[in-house]
């Protein structure tokens, strides 16, 4: 196990994490988490007490106590300049500070157990990067007992690793059952295995999974959280029987059929152990990403990748090009459509949304819906939360949200589109007999008809003709075959193909309307409320921050160009931007609480807010 280098100053100690250097020399490196570093600068700037502690090289225990108070007791009182997720940030500073303890605890445990050190490291890391678990560990720390925080954490982590190394999470059988075919293939290849062996092993592994899950892991007598049971020789024998039967079937992959030998339980056991070794070897070279992903989901890198600026150019033309490329079909759709049609859609949707909102109000008064239902569209479309997080925030189940979104918002808007497209009354003539089987009492005829009309122009003429003859003029297949000089079989096939094609277009069209017209429109409608909050917040910023935003985002200057323009250094620019983002996030979080009574609590929720602000700054503040 490589030894990490020393961290020399407080900034490093509270903002860096260990990563495996993958350049081949098998060393640990300390990698800076940019958000943490900026947060340290922020606290030094605005909190004189913190700044005083931080400047001294030997007061790290007092600094960690400062973060402990913030993370566990929410003290001192939150200030406007602080990030809305300050408790999580405090936990992360502590995680960074205590990351070295992971190393020491793993080193202590490593010699006594047979697993690769990376496994133990992952256990230790897991305890730190789950906010609930980490908070629990920290809460049990009592400075009055004499031990300092680092000693306490070393001891706690050593115990956690010893306990967990025994249980299922690190069972090699779990590793084997959980990995996808693709991951297992990669691991086997990296271990020097070749075809056809890999194909044989993959097939056997899939049967092993079924037998092992059915007999062992899914058995209710198996206690969750306990170590996964070892498969028995009977399990391997059963897998061998299944495999031997399968390899004789035409369904077996070619490699298995031609290289098939009758295998025994012992062969299967051997194959599975080879897989485990390969997967464990793969784990030993922990990719930098996998460690980093444990650290924080709230990274800027995602956005940097999406909106990376070209450092050499004054104006980021490639960015605009990228943006144009990324515009969804709707943009094209809207551009293609005439102004008149676009206005029509907007007018119809506006009217619909008003009636939807009135309907929701009415349903709330009648007790059919709850007040919280009013919050769903803003969370969904305005802030882009997915259904499960919304269910968590509002404390209702996911199907309720799915139904509300679909039934109250998306379906009425899709149906409203029918008014624009359903001007040609051809559907009844052409397809009523087969496609719209309930056409006599159609629930949905308007928009189905409209969706069909949309694509009818592009529909091959031979299909149109055959449908018209069959369903419009009600000719028999025999009559059509005479008329078109085709065999009856050919007529049948053409009708079948026409039906398939038309149905596919219909569904595609409805889905396009839903996604590219309705969803996007609702997105814009509710986002505009969010943007209004952010715009108002920017308007209240001090002049220097407004200037910073202007150059950095409105004129799309790089950090260096902005620094040059404002006659400051680049660090000041990045610190200022960090402050801007925090203040915008704060404004949004407060607005949600004050106006919609939505209180965000979870790290992922703050992360979403941060993404909204980031995206708005990057793209929308024009």
């Amino acid at each position, binding site marked *: 196990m490589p030894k990490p280098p020393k961290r020399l100053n407080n900034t490093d100690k509270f903002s860096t994490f260990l990563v495996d250097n993958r350049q081949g020399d098998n060393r640990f490196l300390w990698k800076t988490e940019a958000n943490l570093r900026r947060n340290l600068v922020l606290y030094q700037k605005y909190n004189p007490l913190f700044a005083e502690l931080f400047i001294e090289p030997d007061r790290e225990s007092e600094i960690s106590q400062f973060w402990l108070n913030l993370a566990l007791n929410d003290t001192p009182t939150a200030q406007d300049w602080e990030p809305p997720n300050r408790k999580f940030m405090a936990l992360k500073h502590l995680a960074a500070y205590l990351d070295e303890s992971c190393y020491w605890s793993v080193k202590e445990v490593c010699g006594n157990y047979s697993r690769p050190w990376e496994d133990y490291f992952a256990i230790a890391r897991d305890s730190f990067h789950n906010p609930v678990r980490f908070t629990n560990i920290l809460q049990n720390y009592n400075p009055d007992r004499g031990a300092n925080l680092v000693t306490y954490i070393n001891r706690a982590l050593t115990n956690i690793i010893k306990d967990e190394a025994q249980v299922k*999470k690190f069972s090699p059988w779990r590793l084997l*059952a959980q990995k*996808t*075919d693709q991951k297992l293939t990669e691991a086997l290849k990296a271990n020097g295995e070749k075809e056809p062996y890999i194909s044989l092993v993959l097939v056997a592994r899939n049967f092993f*999974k*079924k*037998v092992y*899950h059915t007999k062992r*892991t*899914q058995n*209710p007598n198996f206690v*969750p959280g306990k170590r996964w049971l070892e498969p028995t020789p009977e399990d391997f024998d059963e897998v061998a*029987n299944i495999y031997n*039967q399968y390899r004789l*079937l*035409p*369904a077996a992959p070619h490699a298995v059929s031609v290289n098939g030998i009758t295998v025994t339980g012992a062969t299967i056991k051997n194959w599975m152990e080879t897989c485990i070794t390969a997967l464990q070897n793969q784990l030993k070279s922990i990719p930098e990403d996998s460690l980093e992903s444990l650290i924080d989901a709230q990274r800027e890198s995602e956005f940097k990748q*999406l909106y990376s600026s070209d450092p050499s150019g004054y104006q980021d033309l490639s960015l605009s090009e990228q*943006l144009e490329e*990324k*515009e*969804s079909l709707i*943009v094209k759709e809207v551009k293609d459509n005439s102004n008149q049609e*676009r206005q029509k859609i*907007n007018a119809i949707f506006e009217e619909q949304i008003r009636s939807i909102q009135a309907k929701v109000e009415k349903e709330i008064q009648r007790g059919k819906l709850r007040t919280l239902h009013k919050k769903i569209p803003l969370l969904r479309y305005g802030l*882009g939360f*997915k*259904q499960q997080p919304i269910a968590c925030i509002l404390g209702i*189940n996911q*199907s309720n949200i*799915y139904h509300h979104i*679909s039934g109250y918002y*998306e*379906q009425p808007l*899709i149906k409203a589109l029918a008014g624009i497209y359903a001007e040609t009354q051809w559907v009844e003539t052409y397809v009523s007999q*087969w*496609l*719209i089987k*309930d056409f006599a009492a159609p*629930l*949905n005829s308007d928009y*189905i008809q409209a969706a069909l009309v949309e694509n009818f122009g592009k529909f091959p003429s031979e299909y149109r003709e055959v449908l018209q003859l069959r369903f419009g003029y009600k000719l028999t297949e025999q009559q059509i075959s005479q008329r078109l000089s085709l065999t009856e079989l050919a007529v049948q096939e053409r009708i079948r*193909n026409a*039906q*398939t094609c038309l149905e*596919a277009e*219909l*569904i595609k069209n*409805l889905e396009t309307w*839903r*996604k590219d017209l309705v*969803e*996007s429109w609702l*997105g*814009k*409608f509710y*986002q505009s409320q969010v943007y209004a909050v952010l715009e108002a917040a920017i308007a209240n910023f001090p002049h220097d921050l407004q200037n910073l935003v202007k150059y950095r985002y409105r004129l799309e200057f790089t950090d260096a160009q902005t620094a040059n323009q404002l006659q400051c250094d680049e660090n000041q620019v990045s610190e200022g931007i960090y402050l801007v983002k925090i203040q915008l996030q704060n404004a949004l979080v407060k607005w949600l609480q004050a106006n919609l009574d939505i209180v965000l609590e979870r790290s992922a929720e703050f992360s979403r807010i941060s993404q909204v602000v980031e*995206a708005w700054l990057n*793209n*929308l503040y024009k």
Partner: protein
Amino acid sequence: MVEQFVQMIGETGIMFNFNTANKDYSDELYLPVSSIDQKQAWESAQNQSNAIARYNAYLNLLCLKTFLSWFKDWIEATNLPEPKVWQNEESLANIWEFVNGTVIQMGETRLVLIPSDEADAETFCVPQEWIDIPSWVGDYYLAIQVNLDDDEGECAIEVRGFITHRQLKNNGRYNESDRTYSVPLESLVPNLTTLELTIGLGLRQEIPSLTEISAAETAKVLSILGNASVYFPRLRVDIPFAHWAALLDNQKTRQQFYHQRSGKTLINLRQWLQTNIEAAKKAVEEIWQSSDILFAEAELVRGSGRTENTSTADIASVIALLNPNKPDITHYQAAGVLGEIAPGNPDAIKALTKLLQTTKNEQTRWQASLSLGKIDPGNPLAGVNNARLIDFGIQLNHQKLGLIVAIMPTVQGRLSIRVQLKPVDSASKLPPHLKLSVLSETGEVIPGLEEESGIDADGKGKTNLLTLNLNPKPGKCFQVRVTLGELSVTEYFIA
């Protein structure tokens, strides 16, 4: 606000980038599976014949329970008919013995759920049975990914999207070797709103009806596939798909296959009548044994001594009690005593035969027939009274129960059948809420043929005995089930 938005669209359309900067709105539907559903699914899946079928049933049950509960909530607020599972529990088990997939039916609209545990699958594979058997065809096919053990060790299902029958049949790739139709997963429509919008359309391609196959062919296939160690019955090349589909479509044949594979012995009650009673008494290791042996302790007190010391005169005096002038209760008791004291005695056999032909009292007829069975096994009017132990373990504090099935031939060639449940220890009562049911061969409870044990004011059982009587046609199959909460024991009979 709307004006602002319209203006912005008009200017550049740049606002749309917010959507693309983040993930789009389309939600993959990720539904956690409850641990109760997991437990029940695992227990039900144990009825399948082998590990592959058990795993298939398990995945389908997890998928069905979780999806249906979510779906019902969703559909509840619409005008659509209530979603129901196609086929009963018994039929589902015999479908999952062979094929992956489950149908949810809403009025005429059918959704076929196809679960898979492959996290990195790129194609959606649907077994041919769901596409080419006319009565199995659905409107929509939903790809459901089951994750048995995610990073948090939780179990969940994910709805990946849907496709219609017509699209699968015409645009799907048919793979002859594994008898599936497949399409790329990315070609599915991910959002179920579009599904709801198209309900009521004719989305099924017309499928030709299946050819019937002969009884001889059925028997041949049964001899091959009835063996539980045939793990992939639907892929056998020596059974053409057309034959396979016809067999599978027939509920009775399917059930027969399933029973044979899962080792569920179909008990032919008429064979009980031919079994030598002594042989039956010796076969104590068998599940079904003579009721007298099972309840031996209780019987011992009454029965012992009588057979050894009974004289012909004693027998004659009991026969005298069968005089038509005596009341029914005397006939009943005397018939019972003869069964204990007069094995092989021709006078007793004659007297009981006569009683059977003359008495109008049903209880007395049962007593006479069962006694005749004891003293003259093989007599055409003799009845048989067999029983098996039921032990629900700790759920019933290890209290043992006896399930008794008595049969009696009738003059119309039918069998009268009496099913009873009572504690082995005659001093105790049946626990409360214990159910005794007779079900049809396809697993539905036959109306009027279900009884439940009662409960007294202290919450203890107050019932001594549950009894059900039936009189099925010859050759009719039925099931007898004892249920206690989630636990049940089922026996399969042919009359």
